[in-house]
């Protein structure tokens, strides 16, 4: 032992590094060999035998990866549009048109102190944001994005959604209770009361849809609406759609249902004592909620990923194979890019005049050609694969609802148009001015009490 310590002390830094790294590398090599020979085939065999498990894992990872950009896009959209309503410019410093603002917000949240107040119930305090976040993320499992692209096709998909939505209340209650703050407690209880009360109309409103579709699986509900826009359930169940929309807005705590975090009364509600990434989880959960609610409205009432009119596609593009060019597509693409750039550069030069020197004309030509080719490839994919179409239509519809849900009454107070009922701003009748100042109820004045 002493020998080993003495030797270690005498070694140079490089030698020490080598002494550590060489055995590690050897171990790694052995492990790799064992892995390649034994573990990987076994795993592949196992997963091959249990494909639903793979699908589940991929779905959860994919969903987690999807939520963060969703939140970023939503935050940026909100900042920018509300700024316009407020006659401001909005974020315009970080990234093009301030687009990286929410990214920086994210880093700010990550770099803040992780703080817990004195007297907080630490385990509950720590778990609360996790519960809330997971509850909203897990609902994404049953959202069908496109044919074949969904987390899990439960036959009780809608029930799963409502159950998970109810679970998020638990997180808010935990946060409110564990913060050791009365504002938090009030906020947590408010949110519990609100979500529980809106859960009922939310659940009941989809019963009609479930009967129409004959299933609770979200996938099958979308399939039941295939055809044109007239086959969407919103036209068969308009009242249910309206109720669902309102209740879902409440479920997502958006204005005018934002009593849970009414900052003018109870500061920030259940999130008052949270900072850093713990708060970030609530924040993300809220935005993911908005997305999910919109996605579910789209799925249940607006045909999900189906196109709004009778779409003749997907075409079978197998006739391309008939040309039998195979790998030659790659040089062909290169040639098209090259020739296209030249032609575009010439056009730019002709139209733009002498201001366009050769490099800039070629640069622009390259850009235009690249964009056109990308568009062509995208169009081909869109025509050829129904899941590309599915994602396109689904996202388009969902973001329309995200836009509606997110841009709430508190910011979008309408500019004056008509006149509100019963709110005429005339002067009170002039006779008031001549009415004498007289206290009607003289008995209200007790005798002075000499207390001292």
């Amino acid at each position, binding site marked *: 032992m002493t020998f080993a310590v003495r030797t270690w002390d005498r070694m140079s830094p490089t030698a020490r590094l080598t002494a550590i790294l060489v055995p590690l590398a050897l171990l790694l090599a052995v492990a790799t060999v064992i892995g390649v020979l034994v573990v990987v085939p076994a795993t592949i065999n196992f997963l091959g035998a249990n494909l639903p498990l793979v699908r589940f894992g991929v779905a959860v990872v994919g969903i987690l990866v999807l939520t963060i950009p969703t939140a970023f896009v939503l935050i940026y959209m909100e900042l920018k549009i509300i700024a316009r309503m407020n006659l401001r410019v909005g974020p315009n410093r970080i990234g093009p048109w301030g687009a990286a603002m929410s990214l920086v917000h994210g880093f700010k949240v990550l770099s803040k102190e992780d703080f817990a107040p*004195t007297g907080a119930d630490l385990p509950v305090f720590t778990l609360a944001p996790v519960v809330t976040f997971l509850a909203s993320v897990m609902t994404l499992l049953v959202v069908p994005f496109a044919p074949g692209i969904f987390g899990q096709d439960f036959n009780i998909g809608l029930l799963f959604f409502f159950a998970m939505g109810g679970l998020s209340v638990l997180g808010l209650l935990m946060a409110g209770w564990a913060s050791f703050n009365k504002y938090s407690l009030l906020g947590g209880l408010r949110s519990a009361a609100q979500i529980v009360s809106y859960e009922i109309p939310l659940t009941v409103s989809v019963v009609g849809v479930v009967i129409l579709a004959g299933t609770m699986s979200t996938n099958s509900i979308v399939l039941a609406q295939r055809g044109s826009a007239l086959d969407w359930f919103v036209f068969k169940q308009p009242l249910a759609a309206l109720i669902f929309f309102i209740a879902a807005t409440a479920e997502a705590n958006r204005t005018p249902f934002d009593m849970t975090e009414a900052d003018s009364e109870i500061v920030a509600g259940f999130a008052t004592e949270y900072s850093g990434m713990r708060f970030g989880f609530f924040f993300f959960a809220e935005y993911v909620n908005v997305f999910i609610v919109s996605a579910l409205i789209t799925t249940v009432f607006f045909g999900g990923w189906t196109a709004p009119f009778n779409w003749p596609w997907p075409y079978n593009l197998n006739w391309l194979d008939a040309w039998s060019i195979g790998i030659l597509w790659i040089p062909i693409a290169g040639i098209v890019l090259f020739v296209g750039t030249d032609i575009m550069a010439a056009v730019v030069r002709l139209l733009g005049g002498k201001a366009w020197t050769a490099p800039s004309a070629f640069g622009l030509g390259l850009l235009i050609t690249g964009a056109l080719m990308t568009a062509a490839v995208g169009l081909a994919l869109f025509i050829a694969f129904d899941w590309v179409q599915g994602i396109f239509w689904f996202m388009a519809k969902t973001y329309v609802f995200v836009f509606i849900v997110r841009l709430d009454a508190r910011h979008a*107070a*309408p500019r004056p148009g008509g006149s509100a009922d019963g*709110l005429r*701003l005339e002067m*009170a009748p002039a006779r008031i001015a001549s009415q004498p100042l007289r206290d009607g109820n003289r008995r209200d004045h007790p005798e002075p009490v000499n207390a001292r």
Partner: protein
Amino acid sequence: MPPRTTRTTGRATRSAAPRPPHASEDDPRIMLDREISSDLYDPVPPYPTQTEREAEFYTRGDGEMFLNVGPHHPATHGVLRLVLKLSGEQVVDVDPVLGYLHRGVEKICENSDYYHVIDQVDPLEYVSSLFQEWAAVLAFEKLMDVEVPARAEWIRVLSGELLRISSHTLFMGFLALDLGGLTPILYSFIERDEIVEMLAALTGARMLFNYFRIGGVNGDLNHEFLSRLGDWMSRAAKQTEANAGLLNENEIFVRRARGVGVLSREMALRYGVTGGNLRASGVPFDVRRAHPYSVYPALDFNVPTRLEGDALARYLIRVDEVRESIKIIDQCLHNMPDGPVMAKLPRLLRPHPGRAWGAVEGPRGMLGVYAISDGSDQPFRFRIHDPSFVNLETVPALLPGNLLADTMAIVSSLDPVMGGIDK
């Protein structure tokens, strides 16, 4: 009343923080972590109750809890602290705690000479500081029998009414903010900024103007002020209607403000409430008409009055007053006489011994000053009566029975400014 224990313990120490070396287990100032309970954060004062009312308030009934709103809270308009006694979300009782902004302005004024006092009273009602100057100047002019030139009076009315519009516009924005609407406040500030820039051209300051003088005003109207004013007047009425419409036609705002915090006529009189809050309860008391000063008798304007006495009425009164103020400004611009803007006065003022009371109608109500002179160059007693102080006093009567969500709507609809309340 059950006896209450007096607590001598101070704040809890953080568990991670090292304990100071002198601290021992039985040091009453140190509270151990295991002793921390929700009781620690109750706003119960750590001394025996002093009055009947205090004892009644700080005795908790069954299922009631105390909630400290303020002094640092997003919606209490400065450093007001409201101790709410809640039963669930319902307010049972309120104890407003003042004094966080107390500067002793009255004492400072008693130790300043008469010219200096005007400077000292500026930051009281910082939203509309000209009116506080006006009240002081009015009392001093009465004390000294100073004749103010006519043009100075007209300029006072003109700048005062401009500031009244600015203050009322800000009130509308803040009321909406406390009800959860974030946009109107930004429109309000646009309006206010135009007016404040205009007054900056006239007085040299944007907020604490120090413009009125005993016997006149500091400086005549100038070109920049008039051109800005003309520009603004060309669209003032339209802009005001637009800003008011933003709220008047908002369903959420109207429903939340209507029927909330009803101040009856008798109650308003008994509480000594003044200003728009009193007129919203059906009493047409406006110092400009009730006890005219300056050139208001020569002006044509109405005193808007409403009967409901709720938060919405208090808001609508302000909207109406803005319209009346625009009318007054128009008349000022048409009737402004020529002449000097300052009376000739000595550099050091030593009024004869005597007393004077001057009151003006500020945006929040009657601003009064009671000045006593003992013949020296400083006022012997300088009493400031601030309307927000009395208006805020109705809060303990208005809040009980309402929900927590409505507390801010009610407090905000009374339009308190803590600078004036705390003096």
